[in-house]
């Protein structure tokens, strides 16, 4: 399952995208996320799935634009820490940050 956590408003698409088919619940993304917006726990969407998956904390979903901005998703020299730490490549970002801020 592809989970898009975040929002869309007049300024763009601001989503942290987690592919739960790839996510193995290892929790590395949660550890390295500077604003600590990620958590790992039972899959709350597929309630019959066993094992843990990563997700964005509920109270953080409306603020991902601001929380993720310092990590420069899509336009920094390095990928954001969560993307770098994820071996199965389960986590990524939408293009809002690249479109609006990556104009250098």
């Amino acid at each position, binding site marked *: 399952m592809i989970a898009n956590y975040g*929002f869309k*408003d*007049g*300024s763009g698409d601001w989503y942290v995208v987690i592919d739960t088919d790839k996510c193995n619940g290892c929790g590395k993304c949660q550890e390295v996320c500077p604003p600590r917006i990620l958590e790992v726990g039972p899959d709350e969407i597929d309630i019959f799935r066993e094992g843990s998956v990563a997700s964005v904390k509920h*109270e953080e979903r*409306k*603020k991902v*634009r*601001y*929380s993720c*901005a*310092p990590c420069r998703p899509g336009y920094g020299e390095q990928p954001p820490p969560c993307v770098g730490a994820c071996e199965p490549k389960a986590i990524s970002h939408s293009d809002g940050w690249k479109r*609006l*801020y990556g104009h*250098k």
Partner: protein
Amino acid sequence: MIVAGIDVGGKNIHIVVKKDGQILGKTTGSTGIKKEEVVGQLYDEVLKKAGLARKDVERVVATGSAAKRVAFANGAIPDVAADAKGVIKLIPSARTVIDVGAEEGRSIKVSPEGKVLDFAINEKCAAGTGTFVEAMSRALEVSVDEMSKISLQSTQTLSINAQCAVFGESEVVSLIHQKTPKRDIARAVMNAIAGRIASVARIVGLEKDVVMVGGMAKNAGFIDSLKKNIEMDVLVPADPDYMGALGAAEAAIAGVYTD
């Protein structure tokens, strides 16, 4: 040489008339719907007060979201360039300029010469603009000035979870129903928008001196929240909402603008 800088924002127009180092006149008014007419009227008014006529002004440079509506301008410059030029003139130590108006917020990294090195914009969403503060003040049934004052007297911290002016209004209404003191709600509103603006500012980096301009700079409660959020001092020039127009006037003097 006499020049004029005209900043046509979504909500307000600001005009500055300058001769060399001196400001001969300045004025502000609501942009309204018939923008060209209003700009013309305000321009003629400020010139009349300064004892001038249109022909006395050698160059007119426009800026702002509706800069195109200044039909008689010689040229225009982008808002971020106007802000940078205007602020550096008044505060040479400025390195970060944060401009929040009624409809847009922006953060600009400036060089000592007043050039724009980088910028980030908060646009098309009322939650990062003066409109948010206005909407919340309506829900609180106080003026924006009153809301700013009482926010400084807040004794308890709460947060507004909504990141939208429309949903924020409902949240404020619920808080009022729960008998939350208005001063604490006011403070929460200031903290909420200061947080969003600080986040956008961090994208370009917060290097001192941090200067706040635009309509929001006149809101002392907001400035206080911003300072606490970024843990840095924030300088506010006199007439902070005129910075765009001032910068446009400086561009006129320097002859640096696009036709």
